[in-house]
C-alpha cells in the first residue's frame, strides 16, 4: 500500500472544515464485573478472575452490578445528560475469540444517559461546549496475546493465547455529538475534551481513567467538508488512541490525510483505522468481506433498568464538587486573575495547589512552589507535574517548615530535592541531610564577629549607619554556615554587634 498524500495542516484548514466525534470507553473501578462477581483488578495471573458467566460457559447467566449502574448514572448526571427512565440491554452479535459469548452485552438504542454536554476550556481560555450524544453501559472483552511472527501483532502470528480476566469488566462508552466549527483548533479541542472528561470521571471516583493501562480508551471520528459547504464528509474512525498527546496527533494526521484524498478527487473510505504511536500516523484496518450487521436484539437474560426519579436524585446528591465548580471556587477564594487562573490550569497545577492548600499551606506559597521550582523539576525530568514523586501534603510540610523558621528557602529546595530523590518524608530529609537552620545565637555570633573582623571597612560603614552594607556580611556568614543560618537573624545580629 502506498503512503497516503498528506496536505499541509494550515492548507487543510484554509479549505476544509473538520467535523470531530469522540467515543471514549471508560473501565469502571467497581469491585466486580458488569454481570458477575469476579474481581476487576489489573494484572492478575491469566484466567484467574473468571467464572462460568464471564467465560460464557453454557448455561451461565448475567446479573447486573448495581454499582456499575450507579456509576453510569452519576457519569450521565455529571455530563448534564437526561437519565433514561427505562432501558434494556441488547446483544451485539459478532464472532471474535476474545469475546466468550460471541456477542457483547451492551446498550444499543436504549442508553442509560442521553443528550448532555461538557464545557471544555482551551489553553487561551476559550470555552467550547461539546455535546454528549449518549453514555451507555457495556462489557469489556478478553485479551489476546499473539504468538509467533516478528512483531507480536496480530498479523503474521502463528497462534493466539486468550486471557479472559478482563472479559466482563464494566465499561461506560461516552459518545459526543458531532463537534463542528473547530477549524485549526480541532486537534486541541479533541485533546482538551478527553482531558476534561478524564478529570471529571476521576473526580467522580468511578474509574482510574489511566490511558496507559487501558482503563480509558479513545476512538477518534473525523471527516472534512469543503469550507463553508455544510456538506458532511465521509468519516474515518481511528482506534487505539491511547494517550492525550495521541488524541491530538490522530486528529491532526487524519485531517491532513483526508484532505490528501479529497484533493486527489477521490472518496474517503468509511473505515476503521488504527493509530500508530511510533509514527503518529494511522493505518487502515482489514477491509471486511461483508458489511457488519450486528443483529442487535434485546438481551432476554436481563430485565429492563428503570431508574426511579428518587434514585436518580439520590445519586445526584452524591456527586462531588465537579472540576469546573472547583476551579470557579478556587479562583474566587484565592482571588486569582483570569490569566493567573489559566496559567495554573494550563500548567496542570491547579489540583495540586488546591490539594497543597487543603493540606494546610497558604495559597500563595503553594502556587509559588508548584508553578516555579516544581514546574522546573518536572520540565527537567520530562514528566507531567502530577507525575513528580512528591505529594501535595509533602509540599505543604516543606512550606510549614519554612514559615516556622526551621528552614529557609534555599534549604527548603534541598529538602524538596531529597523528597524527589526518594529520601523519604520532608522531616526525614531534614534529619538525614542535617539541613536544619542554625538558630543557636552563640554559634552565629562567633561567625558574625569573624566576618566583621575579616571585612573591617564594611564593619566601619555599618557602624556609621549604612545598614544596607550589612548584606555583604550576611553573605559571608551564610557561606560560613553553609546556608544553614537564618538570614534574618544573622542581619539582626550584625547590626547588634555593630552597636545598632
Amino acid at each position, binding site marked *: 500500500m502506498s503512503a497516503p498524500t498528506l496536505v499541509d495542516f494550515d492548507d487543510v484548514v484554509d479549505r476544509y472544515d473538520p467535523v470531530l466525534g469522540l467515543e471514549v470507553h471508560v473501565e469502571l473501578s467497581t469491585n466486580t464485573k458488569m454481570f458477575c462477581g469476579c474481581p476487576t483488578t489489573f494484572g492478575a495471573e491469566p484466567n484467574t478472575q473468571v467464572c462460568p458467566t464471564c467465560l460464557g*460457559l453454557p*448455561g451461565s447467566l448475567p446479573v447486573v452490578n448495581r454499582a456499575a449502574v450507579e456509576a453510569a448514572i452519576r457519569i450521565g448526571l455529571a455530563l448534564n445528560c437526561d437519565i433514561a427512565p427505562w432501558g434494556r440491554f441488547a446483544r451485539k452479535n459478532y464472532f471474535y475469540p476474545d469475546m*466468550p459469548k460471541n456477542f457483547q452485552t451492551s446498550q444499543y438504542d436504549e442508553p442509560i444517559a442521553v443528550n448532555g454536554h461538557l464545557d471544555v476550556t482551551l489553553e487561551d481560555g476559550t470555552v467550547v461546549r461539546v455535546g454528549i450524544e449518549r453514555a451507555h453501559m457495556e462489557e469489556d472483552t478478553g485479551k489476546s496475546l499473539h504468538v509467533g511472527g516478528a512483531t507480536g501483532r496480530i498479523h503474521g502470528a502463528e497462534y493466539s493465547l486468550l486471557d479472559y480476566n478482563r472479559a466482563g469488566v464494566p465499561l461506560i462508552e461516552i459518545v459526543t455529538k458531532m463537534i463542528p466549527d473547530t477549524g485549526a483548533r480541532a486537534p486541541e479541542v479533541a485533546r482538551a475534551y478527553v482531558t476534561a472528561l478524564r478529570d471529571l470521571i476521576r473526580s467522580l471516583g468511578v474509574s482510574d481513567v489511566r490511558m496507559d493501562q487501558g482503563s480509558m480508551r479513545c476512538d477518534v471520528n473525523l471527516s472534512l467538508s469543503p469550507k463553508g459547504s455544510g456538506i458532511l464528509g465521509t468519516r474515518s474512525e481511528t482506534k487505539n488512541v491511547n494517550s492525550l498527546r495521541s488524541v491530538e496527533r490522530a486528529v491532526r494526521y487524519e485531517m491532513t490525510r483526508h484532505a490528501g484524498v479529497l484533493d486527489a478527487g477521490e472518496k474517503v473510505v468509511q473505515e476503521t483505522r488504527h493509530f500508530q504511536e511510533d509514527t503518529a500516523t494511522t493505518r487502515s484496518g482489514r477491509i471486511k468481506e461483508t458489511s457488519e450487521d450486528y443483529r442487535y436484539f434485546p438481551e*432476554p437474560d436481563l430485565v429492563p433498568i428503570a431508574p426511579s426519579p428518587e434514585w436518580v436524585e439520590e445519586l445526584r446528591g452524591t456527586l462531588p464538587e465537579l472540576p469546573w465548580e472547583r476551579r470557579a471556587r478556587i479562583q474566587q477564594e484565592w482571588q486569582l486573575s483570569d490569566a493567573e487562573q489559566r496559567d495554573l490550569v494550563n500548567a496542570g497545577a491547579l489540583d495540586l495547589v488546591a490539594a497543597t492548600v487543603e493540606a494546610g499551606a497558604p495559597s500563595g506559597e503553594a502556587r509559588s512552589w508548584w508553578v516555579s521550582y516544581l514546574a522546573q523539576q518536572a520540565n527537567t525530568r520530562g514528566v507531567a507535574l502530577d507525575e513528580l514523586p512528591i505529594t501535595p501534603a509533602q509540599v505543604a510540610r516543606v512550606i510549614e517548615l519554612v514559615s516556622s523558621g526551621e528552614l529557609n528557602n534555599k534549604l527548603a529546595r534541598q529538602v524538596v530535592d531529597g523528597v524527589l530523590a526518594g529520601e523519604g518524608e520532608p522531616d526525614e530529609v531534614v534529619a538525614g541531610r542535617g539541613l536544619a537552620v542554625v538558630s543557636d545565637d552563640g554559634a552565629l555570633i562567633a561567625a558574625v564577629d569573624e566576618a566583621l573582623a575579616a571585612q573591617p571597612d564594611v564593619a566601619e560603614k555599618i557602624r556609621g549607619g549604612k545598614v544596607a552594607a550589612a548584606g555583604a556580611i550576611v553573605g559571608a556568614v551564610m557561606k560560613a554556615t553553609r546556608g544553614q543560618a537564618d538570614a534574618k537573624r544573622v542581619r539582626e545580629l550584625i547590626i547588634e554587634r555593630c552597636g545598632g
Partner: protein
Amino acid sequence: MSELTRLTAAELAQKIHSREVSAVEAAQAHLDRIAAVDERVHAFLHVGAEAALASAALVDESLDADTPPASPLAGVPLALKDVLTTTDMPTTVGSRILEGWRPPYDATVTAKLRAAGVTILGKTNMDEFAMGSSTEYSAYGPTHNPWNLDRIPGGSGGGSAAALAAFEAPLAIGTDTGGSIRQPAAMTGTVGVKPTYGGVSRYGLVACASSLDQAGPCARTVLDAALLHEVIAGHDPLDSTSIDAPVPAVVEAARRGAEGDLHGLRVGVVRELTGEGYQAGVQENFDAALRELEKLGAEVVEVSAPHFQYGLAAYYLILPSEVSSNLARFDAMRYGLRVDKGASAEEVMAATREAGFGPEVKRRIILGTYALSSGYYDAYYGQAQKVRTLISRDFAAAFEQADVLVSPTAPTTAFPIGDKVDDPLAMYLNDLATIPTNLAGTTAMSVPSGVAAEDGLPTGLQIMAPALGEAVMYRVGAAYEAARDAADGSPFATRIPEVKR
C-alpha cells in the same frame, strides 16, 4: 422388574423415610432396571451409577442418624435432562459439539436436587439443544417410546419422559421451550409441568431460547410432579429473570385436588385449539376429559384466543433468533469440540460448527440470523414480539372467564420414528397447542387422558393457568387424574406395556 420401580415417588419416599427400604436399594433397583431396558429405550445418555449410589448412601446414613430427611423426596431416584449442568457427569445437550464436556459448575436445579437428597441416576437424551419434538435430532441416536419402540417419545425431552414410562426412574427433570416437557408427557402417558417463566432458575440450563426456556418436573403422577416442583422452584439471585415470590403451594393443591371436588371452578376450552387437525382418538379423549371435569363439578366454558393461531409463526421467529445468538459461543475456542480444519480461528470455528451441529440446529441458526438481520428485523423478529404481546393479552382475557384453560396437549399420538424427520414444518406443528404458554410466560401441564382407541397410544390433556397460578392447575390436574383412575379402576401407569425385547 422390581416392585420398587413401579412405585410412585411419594410411595417410595415414604418407604425410604420409614426405613422399610433403603435409598441405596431404591437406587440400585432403578439402576438394574436401566441396565435391563435402556439398551432398547435409550432414555439415558449417561448413567452415573457410582455417584447415584454414593448419594443414596448419604441419605441412608443421615436417616440412620435419625436426622429428618432433607426433603420429602430425599433418597428418591431421578433422571436429569442432559441440558442442565452437572459437575460429576458430562453435559452434552444432545450435541456432538459438547461431547464429553464436563461443566465446572452445577446448575441451580442440580444443586437444589442434591441439597434435597434426590438421587440423580444419570442424564437423559434429548433433541440437540432442545430443538425438536421427537428426540430424533439427538446426536446420540433417538429415544424409543416404551409404549411402542418404533414410535417417538416426543421431544425435546423424550429421554426424561421415556425414562418414566419405562420405569427407569419415578421422577425426571425436563425443560420446556415450546412444549418439550408437555408433548413428551402426552406421548408417553406421563405427567409434565412447565412452570411459570421465572419460577425455576435457568442458571446452568444450557440455553435454547432464553426468553422461553423453563425447567420443570416430570413424573408418573400429579402429586409426584408437585413434590418435585417444590424442590426445584424458587428465587435464584443468579438468574435475573427469576421471580422473587413464594413458590405456589402445589403439593397441598395436588392433595386437595385428589379429593375430587372442582365446584366453583371454571374450565375454559380454547376454541382455537380444538376442532379439525386432531387425530380422532386425541379428540375423543379430550371430550371425555371435559365430561370428567364437569362430573367433578367444574363449569366448562368456551373461550376464544384469536391470536393463538399466530403463535407457531411467532415462536419459530423468536426461538431461532435467540438460538442464533445463544449458540454462537460454541466456537471451538474455550470448550467442546474443535475440528482442526483450516489455519485460522475463523476457519476452525466454521468447520467445528459445521461438524458439531446437526441439521435442525443449523436450520434454526440460519433462520434466526435471517430474522435478526437489519433489513428484516421489523417484519420478522419485531412483528413476532408484537404477536407475543397479543397472545399474552388473549390469555389475560381468557383467564377473566376461566380459572384454567384446557386443550389436547398434542394433535396426534406418538408418530413412527423417521416419519417427520425430514419435514421440519410438519414437526413444528406438534407444538401448536403448547407454544402459546411459552410465549406468554404462563404455566401449563400435561396429564394423561387415556389411550387412543385407534392405536392404543397415550394422549394428553393440557391444563393452562396464569403466571404463578400453579396451585389451581395442580388441583385440577390431580382431580382429573383421580377421576380418570377411578373410572379405569387402576392408576394410569399400570396401563403402560412392558418394554418389548
